[in-house]
């Protein structure tokens, strides 16, 4: 598990004592499992991250950030009539208790303008921002290992849990 800290935004909210109990009671805890980032070759400026997300209460993934790239977006890939399409989505819905998979063939977190090559065995720190049904935002730090460019499926598919921690 990675260490947990409170964002300044969350701290401000918690200072509103009257609110804090209600908010934490309704707070969505999001479990991040098996995160990984696809390795790149020199000169390749984009890549993607994959993982499984499970929220205890209805929530959504609204954004992601990472120091390794100029921009980070939440993407949805789709295949229609044998044509691959990819688009940025404003938020990824996480229904309560349901595991939502970010995997090749579906959703991913996209890195644009990578600052350097991502090599197999590296670790990519990134931050995911979630919003619960009350509109309260919280973030989760994730340490995602880099897997080979040639990875077809997550190596530990369905096996591991708890690489990410809620802040």
């Amino acid at each position, binding site marked *: 598990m990675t260490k947990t800290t409170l964002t300044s935004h969350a701290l401000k909210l918690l200072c509103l004592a009257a609110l804090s109990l209600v908010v934490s009671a309704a707070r969505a805890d999001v479990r991040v499992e098996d995160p990984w980032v*696809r390795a790149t070759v020199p000169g*390749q*400026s984009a890549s993607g991250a994959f993982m499984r997300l499970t929220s205890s209460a209805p929530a959504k993934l609204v954004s992601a950030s990472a120091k390794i790239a100029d921009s980070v977006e939440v993407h949805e890939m789709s295949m229609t*009539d044998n044509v*691959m399409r*990819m688009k940025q989505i404003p938020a990824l819905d996480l229904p309560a208790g349901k595991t939502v998979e970010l995997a090749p*063939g579906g959703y991913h977190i996209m890195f644009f303008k990578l600052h350097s090559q991502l090599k197999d065995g590296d670790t990519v720190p990134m931050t995911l921002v979630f919003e619960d049904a009350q509109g309260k935002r919280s973030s989760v730090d994730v340490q995602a290992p880099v897997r080979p460019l*040639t990875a077809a499926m997550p190596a530990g598919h369905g096996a591991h849990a708890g690489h990410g921690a809620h802040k």
Partner: protein
Amino acid sequence: MMTPDIAPGSIASLNADSSANPARRRVLLSLAAAAALPLAACGRDGQLKNVHGIDLTDAKWSADFSLKDPDGKTRSIADFKDKLVMLFFGFTQCPDVCPTTLARAAQVKAGLGADGSKLQVLFITVDPERDTPDVLRAYTTAFDPGFLGLYGDAKQTVDTAKAFKVFFQKVPTGSSYTMEHTALTYVFDTRGQLRLALRHEQTAAECLSDIRQLV
């Protein structure tokens, strides 16, 4: 304009058209046999059976390309005539479909065992702007040292895609752009005839079973 005016999915209807009419298929077959006497004399490959992909044996079109490899050498399908060719359009910035397709091609090659040396995988970039020869080389050889990347200028890329009924288009996103593209893998037999299109959804085992019929 980077987008060839080809409707996505046109290939599926093309195929359904030719296989839905057995009578016409036979006519086409005999025409093909007559037109290709030297090939016929060597014995024609049997019809493909129960393929998971799209059988293009009797499709009324074939396609070629004239593109550069990362060494700057101009290549066309004739250069690979004694090989089975798997040809795919994509771009290296793709986090999802392209690496999955190339990883699958590597699995197919491994699955062919000793016949794997007869397989040539070609990756045609639809994003020559970013896929420089060096990036292309590093990318394709990461999957298999024998995989070859091919590129052209913007017009050659459009023309080649058009010839293969491949749709692609540049899509702006945030501060950058990504590409939409047809995700079929075309297969040529050892005579340089276009025979199959493998769908992205096919597993490596399904692709292997289709391709084995052409070895």
